[in-house]
């Protein structure tokens, strides 16, 4: 346990150190796990709602993905966002491609590792975002600690070129398949949020299953209201 504590401390120290320029935008999102099954095919929907004292953000994404090799999966997303200044203006805001790579066999080493690569293109402006993420998961009895650290490069004619970073963590108790409570932490630019999460799984016949996740995250680094709600449904077939 001392080893886990020391390891988490170093992750947090690195993630929170001033060498980072934090990522802006919507920080609360899925916490990625470092596992890919060879025959995996999935359709995914994610919702993120964020309310502050002055604005109300809403974003949804639809994704289709499949494994292309043992330990390697790709997924494409269409991302819709509501303009926080114009509540009637809900639009297709971006497309994103994602590659997940499971780099070690689950349980073989002290912890499990994966990598994530994403490329996002905004639809109505010259703005791109490339993300490289390190995914970590450690099983501790009936609990699992998952951490994501992302390096992000933004560029384009309509945005300032910059490097950014993000950190996400989820500590999950594997109570029963349908209900696994968790604590989630998210850190980005002007954002440090924490709150409860819930993960569940319903199995149909064969390989088909529905995974669901929800989280209620409160920003605690600043005064004022800043609450996020996230919901994700993933159908594997």
């Amino acid at each position: 346990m001392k080893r886990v504590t020391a390891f988490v401390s170093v992750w947090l120290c690195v993630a929170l150190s001033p060498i980072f320029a934090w990522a802006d935008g919507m920080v609360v999102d899925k916490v990625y796990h470092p596992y890919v099954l060879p025959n995996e095919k999935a359709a995914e929907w994610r919702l993120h709602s964020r309310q502050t004292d002055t604005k109300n953000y809403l974003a949804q994404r639809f994704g289709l993905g499949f494994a292309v090799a043992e330990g390697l999966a790709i997924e494409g997303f269409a991302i819709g966002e509501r303009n926080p200044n114009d509540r009637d203006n809900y639009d297709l805001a971006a497309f994103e491609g994602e590659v997940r790579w499971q780099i070690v066999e689950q349980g073989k080493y002290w912890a499990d590792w994966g990598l994530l690569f994403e490329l996002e293109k905004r639809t109505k402006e010259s703005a791109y975002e490339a993300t490289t993420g390190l995914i970590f998961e450690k099983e501790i009895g009936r609990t699992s600690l998952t951490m994501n650290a992302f390096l992000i490069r933004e560029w384009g004619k309509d945005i300032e070129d910059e490097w950014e970073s993000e950190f996400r963590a989820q500590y999950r108790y594997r109570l029963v398949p349908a209900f696994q409570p968790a604590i989630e932490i998210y850190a980005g630019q002007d954002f440090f949020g924490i709150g409860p999460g819930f993960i569940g799984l319903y199995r149909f016949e064969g390989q088909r299953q529905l995974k669901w996740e929800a989280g209620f995250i409160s920003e605690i680094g600043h005064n004022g209201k800043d609450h996020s709600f996230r919901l994700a449904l993933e159908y594997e077939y």
Partner: protein
Amino acid sequence: MKINAFCLLLTFSGFFISTLAFASDSFLLVLENHLFTPAKVEVPAGKKVRLVIENKDAEPEEFDSFDLNREKVLFPGRKSVIYIGPLEPGEYRFFGEFSPNTAQGVVVAKEPDNAS
């Protein structure tokens, strides 16, 4: 502010290299006619072990266990390795997703002195 990506990479690489921990004990199971044999596997508690599963069926199967927190595709005609543990003493059920009514088994973790 600029990110010192090299520092970050070095930190994570260092941890990755320093955290290797291999399982030493192996336990062989065979999947044939959609049945796991043996269906009950006794392993020492508190140790990381390997389940080596040989799928002798013509179709793939997917090993699934919420208790063990593992999912693994078992390709036909191949031996697959599943690393489990360290486990607390107790019973951990597993099954095959494509034949859940027949392909069932249990891992029993026992204190080393009691394990067979």
